[in-house]
């Protein structure tokens, strides 16, 4: 039955020919457009944590690896990978390692729902950016945390949560990438050295009386801490105390002296922890 045979053979032949032709074309294109792999980049990419947080200022880990493999020598930009990562990259590149200073994000506001009040009822979009556009947000203190969690969404490590209307950052989860710092419309999250033990947990620059009226735990600018600090590490900006962490000797005088508790320990057991961290850093470098 030759008719049946050709009926089968022609389509089969056409499909086969087409497949072969296309396969050949794909091979040609893949040869012509082959991407040469950058081995150094691949290695660095492997050494990086792969969190793609963008804390280094590049577009993800790949962007940073690209920069390093081409001309970069600054191995200290990855806050997430820390010291080990910087060393590994330096050994791949064969250069001197620049060690990043370990930092953690600290929210400078303690104005929970109990400590502050609301000026108006906000019913808009649930976002800090949107809320802060409306007369600086519904809170009685317009410097403080709005608590809609823009930072929570920005954190790639799940270190932030909103408790009692303000953000809380879990220091053990924080990698210091600084994404939350960028998104906070109130600019109230600050990257501090992990060795820091105390901080002014407020950024209200209003005069004392006005601060007092609007928040129970804000810095009223009494300058008690400035007088107490044996190192002269505390200065005033408008009506707000500012601690120079590089001068701090962790004596805790300011914490004990602060009448409104605006200056607070970053964590109860932090004094010990920071000493350990210092020791560890000293050993490593």
């Amino acid at each position, binding site marked *: 039955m030759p008719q049946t045979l050709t009926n089968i053979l022609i389509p089969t032949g*056409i*499909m086969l020919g087409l497949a072969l032709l296309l396969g050949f*074309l*794909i091979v040609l294109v893949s040869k012509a457009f082959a991407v040469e792999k950058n081995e150094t980049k691949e290695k660095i990419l492997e050494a990086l944590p792969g969190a793609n947080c963008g804390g280094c200022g590049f577009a993800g880990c790949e962007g940073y690896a690209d920069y390093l493999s081409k001309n970069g020598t600054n191995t200290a930009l990855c806050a997430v990978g820390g010291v080990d990562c910087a060393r590994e990259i330096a050994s791949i590149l064969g250069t001197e390692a620049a060690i990043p200073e370990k930092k953690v994000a600290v929210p400078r506001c303690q104005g929970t729902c109990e400590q502050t009040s609301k000026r108006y009822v906000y019913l808009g979009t*649930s976002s800090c950016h949107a809320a802060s556009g409306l007369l600086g947000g519904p809170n009685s203190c317009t410097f403080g945390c709005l608590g809609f969690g823009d930072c929570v969404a920005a954190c790639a490590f799940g270190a932030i949560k909103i408790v009692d209307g303000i953000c809380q950052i879990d220091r053990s989860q924080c990698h210091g990438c600084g994404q939350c710092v960028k998104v906070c419309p109130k600019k109230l999250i600050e990257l501090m050295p992990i060795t820091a033990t105390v901080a002014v947990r407020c950024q209200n620059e209003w005069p004392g009386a006005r601060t007092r009226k609007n928040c129970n735990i804000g810095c009223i600018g009494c300058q008690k801490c400035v007088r107490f600090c044996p190192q002269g590490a505390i200065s005033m900006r408008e009506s707000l105390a500012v601690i120079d962490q590089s001068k701090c000797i962790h004596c805790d005088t300011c914490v004990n002296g602060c009448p409104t508790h605006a200056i607070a320990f970053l964590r109860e057991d932090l004094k010990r922890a920071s000493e350990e961290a210092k020791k560890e850093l000293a050993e490593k470098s």
Partner: protein
Amino acid sequence: MTKEFLIIIFSAILVDNFVLSKFMGICSFLGVSKNLKTAMGMSGAVVCVMLVASAITWPIQHLLLNPLKLGYLQTLVFILVIAALVQMIEMIMKKSMPPLHKALGIYLPLITTNCAVLGVTILNINSNYSFAESMVNALGAGIGFTLSLFLFSGVRSRIDKADVPEALKGLPITLISASLVAVSFLGFKGLVENLFGG
């Protein structure tokens, strides 16, 4: 002649929008519409693949399959050709446009099995379009895809900020809003007839 082209392109973009009226390419429609940048990248890829696929499948149908009376091989051959085509486009893109390649990620190979692309090529044949008409139809379908992705990525960025009930979060609310956008496109029915009197 111009009038016919206008009818084809307007129907493809507004009246018979591939995503919102024919419900083709829903996978990529939902997948990449999260933000405008990737949505536009994907749309660019779809427009490009639709045009090239139509340009290749039309001669295959009319010069190879029809003379040999092998019309029943249409789907098989078209899928094969489109798949190979997307592979090649991906390789070329990887070499010459790495940022776009990175943005499209897994969605570029998805065009391989995107029914919108296969749909436009088969529609060209079934509607007895000439080669030029096929290309215009492919362009219109691509622009229609771009338009719906553009609109929907805007809708989705609003959904992201909205307070959605727990049970509807994620895909459910996305599908509901997609259907509402589709309903709005029903309003274009009859547009072409009244515009061009055809």
